[in-house]
């Protein structure tokens, strides 16, 4: 493989991440300097830092021309990676604002610094094309995420969920690392493109290749919370501080998908390899969706419900992924676009959960009774988020699902489309049940209204508009996803 030689200008490509390091240092400094109420500023500074990184990234780091392998082939500057980085930055910014008012987290600079570290890790996951770089990025993300999950040390549930997340994560990541090492041993390359070239020579046996694919799938499946690596999801989502649940369920999952795309499509898609692992992922997609949706039916806690629904959404996204052989660009763009819609929608849903829990002190669905009378606007926002999750137009989720169904049908996978359709029905049912509680059931006597602080108002408004725009005037975003997909191949 021929890698472009090193130039100082290449640092521009990772300028957003460099800025983030600076912001992390700034927040840590503020943590020491700021006193009292002004400590609240740290969350806003973090959020603005993410946005600044995004804007500067668009101005400077956005890839132009052909994709390039940089830094000795460890990262690839392409549109797809950039789109994913943009998603992580947005998710990070929203999470920072959502945390700013949460007791025990909002005024801790170290929390925001770790959050920034997580996003840096994810950003490198999005562009890494070398096993070592990839593993480093994934571990940076994971270890920071374990810390975020268990951040409320005096809260048993938070600590428990942090530990659970860590144990699952450590084991699966080890298995994946073993797969990586085998891959290196057999091909002599750590670069994904180098591996692809070596594998296409056909010197690696089919069984070996499938074994490696499965090992790597363990690590990625954990990130995606795909069956059968989903067991941690509900417990961790329930126990973690809610903004972190929002963050893990959106950004972390999305990061898993970009790794899936890079490793499986770039490195492992030799014709014999695909024949082995694609049916497996197809089955995982169908089972993950179905399982997530069916178990979600039985949930009484909103965070657990959203946890299972997020498992189901990972399954839908996998459905778009498995169509990549017949319709490569459509598949990758459908995955990318779906993740965009999902990130916005799920963050919006969790924002409502955070606000509600702040007043009601509960995440039980039954306690949402009559919320539409306590706070009609918040209820409306929740309705929009849930209908978007259910895939109802004119909201983002509809268009996301539409593209998935489209690519699945383009690939001729009618059975998978039918599985998806039936699942959409089940999902609609439990989302509607929640909305029924919110709109139809009577509110408890004297339940207070739900105040919404200005920063939250801004976040809710931006996300709501985003969810509607991605469901209607989505053309620029979809074109972005397409540009990403075509830069990928």
């Amino acid at each position, binding site marked *: 493989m021929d890698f472009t030689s090193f130039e100082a200008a290449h640092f521009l490509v990772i300028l957003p991440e460099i800025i983030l390091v600076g912001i992390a240092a700034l927040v840590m400094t503020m943590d020491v300097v700021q006193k009292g109420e002004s400590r609240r500023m740290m969350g806003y500074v973090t959020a603005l830092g993410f946005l600044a990184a995004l804007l500067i990234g668009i101005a400077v780091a956005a890839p132009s021309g052909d994709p390039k392998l940089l830094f000795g082939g460890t990262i690839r500057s392409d549109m797809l990676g950039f789109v994913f980085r943009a998603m992580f930055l947005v998710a990070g910014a929203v999470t920072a604002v959502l945390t700013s008012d949460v007791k025990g987290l909002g005024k801790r600079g170290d929390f925001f610094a770790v959050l920034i570290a997580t996003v840096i890790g994810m950003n490198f996951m999005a562009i890494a094309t070398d096993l070592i770089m990839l593993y480093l990025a994934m571990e940076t993300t994971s270890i920071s995420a374990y810390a975020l999950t268990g951040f409320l040390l005096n809260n048993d549930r938070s600590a428990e969920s942090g530990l659970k997340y860590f144990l699952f994560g450590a084991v699966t990541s080890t298995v994946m690392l073993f797969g990586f090492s085998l891959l290196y041993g057999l091909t002599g390359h750590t670069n994904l493109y180098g591996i692809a070239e070596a594998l296409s020579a056909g010197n690696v046996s089919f069984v070996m290749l499938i074994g490696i694919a499965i090992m790597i799938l363990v690590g990625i499946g954990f990130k995606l919370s795909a069956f059968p690596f989903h067991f941690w999801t509900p417990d961790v989502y329930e126990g973690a501080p809610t903004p972190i649940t929002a963050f893990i369920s959106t950004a972390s999952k999305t990061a898993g998908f970009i790794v899936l795309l890079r490793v499986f499509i770039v490195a492992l898609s030799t014709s014999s390899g695909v024949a082995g692992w694609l049916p497996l992922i197809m089955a995982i997609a169908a089972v993950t969706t179905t399982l997530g949706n069916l178990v979600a039916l039985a949930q009484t806690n909103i965070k657990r419900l959203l946890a299972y629904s997020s498992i189901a959404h990972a399954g839908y996204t996998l459905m778009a992924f498995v169509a990549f052989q017949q319709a490569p660009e*459509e598949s990758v763009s459908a995955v990318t676009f779906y993740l965009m819609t999902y990130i916005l929608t799920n963050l919006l849903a969790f924002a409502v959960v955070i606000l509600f829990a702040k007043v009601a002190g509960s995440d039980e669905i039954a306690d949402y009774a009559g919320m*539409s009378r306590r706070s*009609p606007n918040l209820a*409306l926002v929740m*309705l929009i988020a849930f*209908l978007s999750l259910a895939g*109802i*137009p*004119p909201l983002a989720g*509809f268009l996301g699902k*539409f*593209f998935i*169904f*489209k690519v699945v*049908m*383009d690939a*001729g996978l*009618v059975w998978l*489309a*039918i599985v998806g*359709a*039936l699942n*959409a*029905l089940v999902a*609609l*049912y439990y989302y*509607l*049940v929640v*909305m*029924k509680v919110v*709109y*139809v059931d009577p509110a408890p006597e004297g339940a207070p209204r739900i105040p919404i602080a200005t920063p939250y108002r801004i976040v809710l408004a931006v996300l709501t508009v985003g969810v509607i725009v991605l469901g209607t005037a*989505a*053309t620029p975003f*979809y*074109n972005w996803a*397409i540009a990403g997909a075509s830069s990928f191949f």
Partner: protein
Amino acid sequence: MDFPILSVITFFPGIVGALLFFFPEDNKEQIRWTALLASLVTLVLSVMVYFTYDVDLGGYQMVDRFAWIPAVGINYIVAVDGMSLPMVLLTGIVLTTGVLISWGIDDRPREFFALLFLLAMGVWGVFVAQDMFTLFFFYEVAVFPMYLMIAMWGWKKTREYAAMKLTLFLVVGSLFALIGALAMYAESGLGTFDMFIIQEQAVFSERFQIIWFPFVFVGFIVLAGMFPFHNWSPVGHVAAPTAVSMFHAGVLMKLGAYAALRVGVVLLPEGAKFWMPYIVIAAFINVVYGSLIAMTRKDLKYMIGYSSVSHMGLVVLGLATLNELGLTGAGLQMFSHGAMTALFFSCIGMVYDRAHTRMIPELGGVMKKLPMVGVAFIIGGLVSMGMPLFSGFVAELPIFMGAWRAGVQGPDFIANYYAWIAIISALAIVITAAYIIRAVGSVFFGEIPEKIEADLTPIRWQDRTAIVILVVSLLALGFYPAWMDTVIKTGVDSVMAVLGA
């Protein structure tokens, strides 16, 4: 560029619906008047659309298009033809009367009217959409507000169950139709959802059409309440608040029939021909079974609910004949039944709001107290029975004639029985007459039960206006069908051209 009237009529209610959410929630009068004014605007617009359509020219008119997501061939295209035009008008009528009838809603009227207008946006969107994506988009927009409206303002006893049942039935139907439409998209290789282009250029093998026609047709026809997917419909009608029942039976069920025709029959004509006898049988069961069940109901709303199943069966029967008479009849029946059911449900709503019961044996002598409601109900009944000079006759006669002739098209396994299907369906009208006359007799005449006597307060001017609008449209069609008949003929002609007959 011309005034994009179809886009305006589609998006105006959506904008009104969205804006209503920003109104102060306690100023209920302001909300009601805004809703009424907005609905009058849409009524005027829909009348304008109806009369600007050039009947001599025929075909699709007032086309308005815009490349929505060009990368995958998604376009926003709207246009009307002879089949959809009456539906556009009907939606305007039902929306306006629905708003008038809902004046009494006191619990969260802001949300109610906002959802009603969003629903209307979806309905108009489907009737004018000429792109499969646009059609699905609006189709689903039309479905979900129903859930909330039934669950929030419906009849306490059954609303949650009914709302969920209805939503799940309709959504699963639409998803299967979506899969069918995507199959067409993939198979055609044209890379567009534009139904004009697919209709003209796509070459679908007969096998493909036979496989995929049921997906599309059945997926949509669920919303028209076709047997055996009718089950959600009476339950939904009964649980829904009056305006929603009106909208639901009056317009939404036509949405299913119209979309099944537009996407199913027109784009997959060979599939339609293959499946036609089976659909005829299912529709026939609808007609007879619906009226038989209606006969046994004591609850007025259930009675009209099942009568809707029966009448929508006639629409589907008309469509399934695939001949000119049947299709014309189906088009007329869609309008006639829409206005008629809206009238029925509004009358029942007025009685129920006062008497707090809908059970036929518990009512009586309503005519004395509410003469206008009684007269309106009787007119609705005459339409329903297919009396000459009323719109029901104008619509149902061609359907029966069409069904009789359906067999002439070619040999199929029920070729010898079409005449019988037509005759027995026509006889089902007798059953309709029986239950309507029974209901009229015991609800509106006779002694007023003491229990309800004091409750039967006069109706509001809003209610009276609504009744007048609906009655006038029914009578206009009954006495002088030519104003709609000729329009529908142009639509039927283009369908017949596709069918190659």
